[in-house]
């Protein structure tokens, strides 16, 4: 499948309502700025998770337009949207690993299915990723047999496997080992500098992570993302 580069993401008058529930978005408009590290914040039920799911194409807006490179992607079929989605890396807040596959196979499946690199290259690449979080020793175990922090680390790490242009992390600090946080920050910086990562969108209230990534807070409102000024480097 052909992977399409992403240079522009915007939401135009997005409305979204879950079945038999109050509307979450009532005309949300926002243009995501490349190179921003966006921290979505807001009270419970404000729509942080829904917004991430809309961006990933897991939910379809009730009305409005979700545009990537000017194309209305919420009107595309699965196959057409998949070309863009291959440039998204995503880690959910909980779960997300395939339980009947080992940690290594979880990564291998992704690379095999999309035919990324040669088999030997895939092995080396996956191993190098695991070493970043010091998971090399347990990579051949299934998720049920490793600690919850290792599962979380593997799920977050998998978001980087295809070297995405858009990284979406749902509460990455929650359940992650304290030692893994600086490694995650380093990985994000490295991918932004060398591997074409353009958009980083994180749903998190973690002040430490926000500071380390010098992120920008966006309060999720029904009609807009209320932007706070960027944090200054304390350098």
């Amino acid at each position, binding site marked *: 499948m052909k992977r399409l580069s992403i240079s522009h993401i915007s939401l135009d008058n997005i409305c979204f309502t879950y079945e038999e529930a109050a509307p979450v978005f009532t005309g949300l408009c926002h243009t995501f700025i490349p190179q921003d590290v966006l921290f979505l914040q807001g009270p419970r039920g404000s729509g942080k998770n829904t917004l991430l799911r809309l961006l990933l194409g897991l939910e379809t807006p009730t009305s409005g337009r979700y545009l990537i490179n000017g194309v209305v992607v919420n009107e595309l079929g699965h196959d057409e949207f998949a070309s863009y989605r291959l440039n998204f890396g995503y880690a959910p807040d909980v*779960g997300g690993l395939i339980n009947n596959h080992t940690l290594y196979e979880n990564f291998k499946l992704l690379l095999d*299915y999309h*035919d990324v690199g040669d088999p030997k290259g895939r092995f080396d690449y996956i191993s190098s990723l695991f070493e970043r979080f010091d998971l090399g020793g347990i990579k051949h175990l299934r998720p049920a047999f490793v600690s919850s922090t290792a599962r979380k680390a593997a799920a977050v790490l998998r978001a980087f496997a295809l070297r995405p242009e858009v990284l979406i992390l749902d509460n990455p600090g929650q359940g992650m080992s304290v030692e893994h946080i600086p490694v995650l920050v380093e990985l994000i910086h490295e991918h932004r500098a060398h591997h074409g990562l353009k958009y980083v969108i994180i749903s998190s209230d973690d002040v430490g992570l926000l500071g380390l990534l010098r992120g920008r807070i966006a309060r999720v409102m029904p009609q807009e993302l209320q932007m706070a000024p960027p944090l200054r480097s304390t350098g």
Partner: protein
Amino acid sequence: MLEAIDSLGKNALDYYRSFKDLFVFVYLSFREVIRRGPRNLQPILFTIVSQIYFTGHQALPLITFLALASGSIIVLQSTAQLSLLGSQEMMGNILVVTIIRELGPLLTAFTVIARSGTAVSTELGSMQVNREVEALRTMSIEPLGFVVFPRIVGGVISLVGLAFYFNCIALVGGFFVSNLVSELSFSFYIEVLAQAITPEDFMLNVIKNGASGLIIFSIATYQGLKVKGAPHEVPIATTRAVVNSIMAVVAFNLTVSVYFFTRGFA
């Protein structure tokens, strides 16, 4: 009275909608794999082989036991009854009709529903709860092609293979077990059996088992993926998968048998 008719109509419409949804679900799963073409089929083939291992290979001990037991009973009873009538040469026909055409497909299908239909439906329901299906979507791996298709294909292959194995064990093993209590010559037994079996019997057997496999695994995967996200939905989906599978398999087998019977294939 009118309420009863309304209720009947509503149920009929519900069944029609479910059947249509199921048909589209299966069609889309096959379409997804055909659309992808032959490239990178390894993950899908791996799942097909795993499904054959779990559904086919691991069910062999249970199928062996069932085939031996039912084969022995049928051989024993038909020998006893036919010898009273002095028409033991009819035994071949009775065995072919009861084991190959009717009992084999049904017993094998029930075994597969009990062992694998429940397992598949529970597995997929749990995958929904653990957000594994959602994770596949975010990785641009379409679950219909990666999760549903290989389970249906693996299930169909397993069921056809298991039914063939059931027939062999029931016919041959049944003779040896029943021979412990009755006197029947093996050469006579093989001769009447060879005279009775026709290529149409094999065709009917493959049609019934192939379709039963398709029905069982389509329903199991469909019900499993219908789980929205709450753990309590998983057993409900599994129960629904079992009940619907049994009803659909019995109805299909009955329809095929009646159809062939009315076409003079008695």
